[in-house]
């Protein structure tokens, strides 16, 4: 990290004095350079007009730097995606760090650079933020909170309440990539993969779907923690309808499927960062799939199932071999099976 006198974060960097000033000016502000940050006010003044979505998320992933991303671009993309699946085009972000004393300065720099790159790629502006430092042992290297504001698409009528029996369930790509990548790098679990996280912003494709299909898109959600299965369970719980999905239609990458077999995990329960579930009127489902396929990250998009009146509150999976089972809900921490 340029122009810093320390090679690690110290408590002094959170003290609000000269060290803090230097860290922010030479580090954060120089990278994320914009009028709001440069004015260094206590709050950002924003001009808003119309309907907006507002969302917040905290990021505590370990390891903080992983194949395909860092906790930094994860924090930017994560909040952008919460806005995106709510039908909003993200505009502004807040960015807060809780740093643990001893975090290597070069890692913090790498994370800041990834934040800048994610902002440039998506066009969002970080307009306010905060930095705190906690004593060693009181945190885990770095925690990041981002809060975002985005303008709702005029045609968006997204709500679980609009979901009807017969609607189709689309998945924008292959699941479980992020979770398996992270697990493969956890201490004590390192195994050889060439997998990278799927962290990426989803707002452009979500906006495009709303442009083309308007209120025929009933509901969208990005299946992060708890995976695709957890989103499906949220839907049946809140709508009182049922869901049927087809194992044959699930796009699974060989390497992800192999790692899941080895680790004893079900890919439907593993976390994703650049994937979304989209529930649409069945009449437009094929067209919607075509649009997803035309998206640069959507080649594996698939219609994985449908909303049904039967078994209300339950998700039924048709297995590859023609069997059926109710998909369970994830319970607590995702623990690998023994044998």
């Amino acid at each position, binding site marked *: 990290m340029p122009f810093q006198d320390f090679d690690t974060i110290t408590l002094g960097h959170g003290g609000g004095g000269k060290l803090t000033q230097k860290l922010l000016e030479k580090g954060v502000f120089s990278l994320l350079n914009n009028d709001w940050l440069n004015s260094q006010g206590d709050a950002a003044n924003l001009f808003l007009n119309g309907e907006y979505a507002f969302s917040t998320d905290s990021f505590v992933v370990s390891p903080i730097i992983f194949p395909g991303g860092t906790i930094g671009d994860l924090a930017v993309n994560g909040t952008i995606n919460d806005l995106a699946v709510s039908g909003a085009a993200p505009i502004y972000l807040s960015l807060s760090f809780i740093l643990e004393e001893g975090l290597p300065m070069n890692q913090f720099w790498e994370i800041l650079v990834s934040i800048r790159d994610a902002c440039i790629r998506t066009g969002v502006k970080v307009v306010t933020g905060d930095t705190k430092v906690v004593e060693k042992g009181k945190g885990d290297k770095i925690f990041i909170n981002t809060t975002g504001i985005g303008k709702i698409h005029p045609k968006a009528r997204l709500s679980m309440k609009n979901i009807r029996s017969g609607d189709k369930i689309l998945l924008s790509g292959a699941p479980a990539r992020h979770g398996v990548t992270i697990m493969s790098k956890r201490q004590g679990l390192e195994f050889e993969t060439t997998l990278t996280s799927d962290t990426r912003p989803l707002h452009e494709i979500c906006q495009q779907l709303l442009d083309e299909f308007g209120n025929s898109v009933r509901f969208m959600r990005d299946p992060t923690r708890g995976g695709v299965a957890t989103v499906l369970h949220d839907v049946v719980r809140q709508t009182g309808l049922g869901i049927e999905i087809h194992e044959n239609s699930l796009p699974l990458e060989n390497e992800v499927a192999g790692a899941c077999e080895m680790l004893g995990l079900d890919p439907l329960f593993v976390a994703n960062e650049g994937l979304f579930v989209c529930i649409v009127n069945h009449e437009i489902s094929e067209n919607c799939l075509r649009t997803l396929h035309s998206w640069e990250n959507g080649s594996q998009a698939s219609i994985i199932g449908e909303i049904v009146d039967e078994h209300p509150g339950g998700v039924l999976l048709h297995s*590859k071999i*023609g*069997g059926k089972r109710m998909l*369970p809900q994830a319970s607590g921490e995702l623990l690998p*099976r*023994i044998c």
Partner: protein
Amino acid sequence: MKYLDEFRNAELVDKLLSKIRKTVTRGWNIMEVCGGQTHGLVRHGILDMLPPQIRMIHGPGCPVCVTPAALIDMAIDLSLRPEVILCTYGDMLRVPGNTISMQQARAKGADIRILYSPLEAVQIAVNNPGKEVVFFAVGFETTAPANALSVLHAYKAGLSNYSILSAHVMVPPAIEAIMSDPETAINGFLAAGHVCTVMGLSEYEPLVKRWKVPIVVTGFEPVDLLEGIWMVVSQLEKGEYKLENQYRRVVEKDGNRKAIELVRDVFEHRSREWRGIGEIPLSGLFVRDKFRDYDALIKFDNLVKHAESQYDCRSGDVMKGKIKPPECPHFGTKCTPEFPLGAPMVSSEGACAAYFQYAQK
């Protein structure tokens, strides 16, 4: 995916199902011994595809489920000592002991690490010379060789801060215990393919002869399971009882000699308490005296000793096939995967959890 797709082939599954349907003429109770097989039956939706005459009974082959609460208490006691790093396999974390689970112990500050291999625990011991590293060694014959190897590695390296808390159990004594129960309802067994990969077939021949019961060593994928079931049903319908090997692509008659030697060098057989089932003679693997320095039971004195408490849990009856999980009065009410009364509700391989997930609707 190679080696999986072939054994999840819908056409082959159909063929095997129709063979089973053509063969079966009356009701049979078949126990799949291993939790991995239970998981396969549930995950692929096979239970409902079988003809109604065939009742699959989920056996005691889930290591997490049969580990006594008293041993879990000891592991928790160790984990809460500031000098100890306790390592174990993931599923163990949620299983309640007599007081709390390891997950709760971790929240109290215990250093508990989830590993996939005990050799990683040895490495943790090397890296943390100021700490005592204890590996909570649960499992059947499948995990025993790796756990034995960890003791040998530590022994050869002269490590003084590594030990294992052995909760190992063996399959053949469990089959013996199930068959010697006068109320047993089991007509045939699918033996656990991976256990036999290690140990070979020799221990099963005497069981077949003594109890006049078909045993088919079986794999874990849908085609394996259905072929195994078909082989058992064919024997039963003909009034035969033989030891057969469905899992020929993996299991050899003599097993893995190197692994068997490792286990024999490090462990000896003694009686062991099985959670929910009771004591089974010579069913446990204990660290031999030669390696006493690596036996946590000897190394740490005054380990907490709770008597095995009497639960409302009827897991023993479930694992012996006397009742099905939903027939337990607490199934799904007082006992759920989030708040389990007994271990079979915890592990994804546990019979109760498998039923709970499958039969929610």
